[in-house]
């Protein structure tokens, strides 16, 4: 929280940008959320692979991987929602439009829709099939991440070219770096904290469900969860 507070202070006190004025300060919240929204889907994909691998070999570990996949999918939806929302607000003020169907925005919207679908699938699919179906969906959904990331390099888009690593004319003023780095670090730490808490919550729910099954059947199918 202290890092986030300091990040906010740095975002407010960074020098004003020459063309956009104070509007560019949205960047200090848009960039961390948009860039970190590419990390959590990979965690979701990795956990889904592990779930499929352990499913028949080690059910207890598979359940842990499934819990991690749920947690990382929810954090992905959170971060992509904020990447979209801050981007749209910035676009409305800078371009005069809320939305345009360019390659970056469209592939990013697709990323958001895929992970919203993942959450809906988990909520409404038939019990017993949920973990397997969502693991397969997660692996397909991850294909969109590199396409979305590379879209501003592969195609001409309304979305600006990469600010970092985008060639000799790209980059920001040195005085703006502390605000970028503090906010990237702050929101990454917050995301990891929320991910851990959500994982812990899901594990407790699994333990309760296993205990309920044990009571019903008179056996304990997953002793590791007790």
């Amino acid at each position, binding site marked *: 929280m202290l890092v986030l507070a300091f990040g*906010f*202070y740095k975002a*407010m*006190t960074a020098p*004003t940008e020459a063309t956009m*004025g*104070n*509007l560019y*300060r*949205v960047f200090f*919240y*848009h960039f961390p*959320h948009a860039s970190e929204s590419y990390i959590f889907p990979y965690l979701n994909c990795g956990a889904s692979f592990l779930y499929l691998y352990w499913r028949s070999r080690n059910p207890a570990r598979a359940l842990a991987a499934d819990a991690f996949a749920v947690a990382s999918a*929810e954090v992905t939806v*959170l971060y992509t*929602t*904020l990447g979209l*929302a*801050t981007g749209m*607000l*910035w676009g*409305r*003020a800078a371009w005069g439009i809320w939305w345009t169907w360019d390659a970056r925005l469209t592939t990013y919207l697709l990323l958001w829709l895929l992970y919203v679908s993942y959450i809906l699938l988990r909520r409404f699919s038939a019990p017993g099939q949920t973990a397997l179906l969502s693991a397969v969906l997660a692996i397909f959904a991850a294909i969109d991440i590199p396409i979305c990331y590379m879209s501003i390099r592969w195609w001409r888009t309304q979305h600006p070219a990469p600010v970092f690593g985008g060639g000799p004319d790209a980059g920001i003023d040195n005085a703006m770096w502390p605000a970028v780095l503090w906010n990237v670090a702050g*929101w990454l730490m*917050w995301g990891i904290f*929320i991910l851990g*808490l*959500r994982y*812990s*919550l899901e594990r*407790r*729910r699994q333990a*309760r469900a296993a205990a309920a099954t044990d009571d019903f059947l008179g056996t304990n199918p997953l002793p590791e969860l007790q």
Partner: protein
Amino acid sequence: MTIPFETLAQRHTVYAFCVVWLLQFGYGTWVAVHWFRERRS
């Protein structure tokens, strides 16, 4: 250490910051409440 709030004169910047705080801390609170409830039950 004072924040020059005139840098928030652009309303879209204020909306963006508020959306981020509301969603992040709203979701964080939801997870924390359920975590405590689950621990108690």
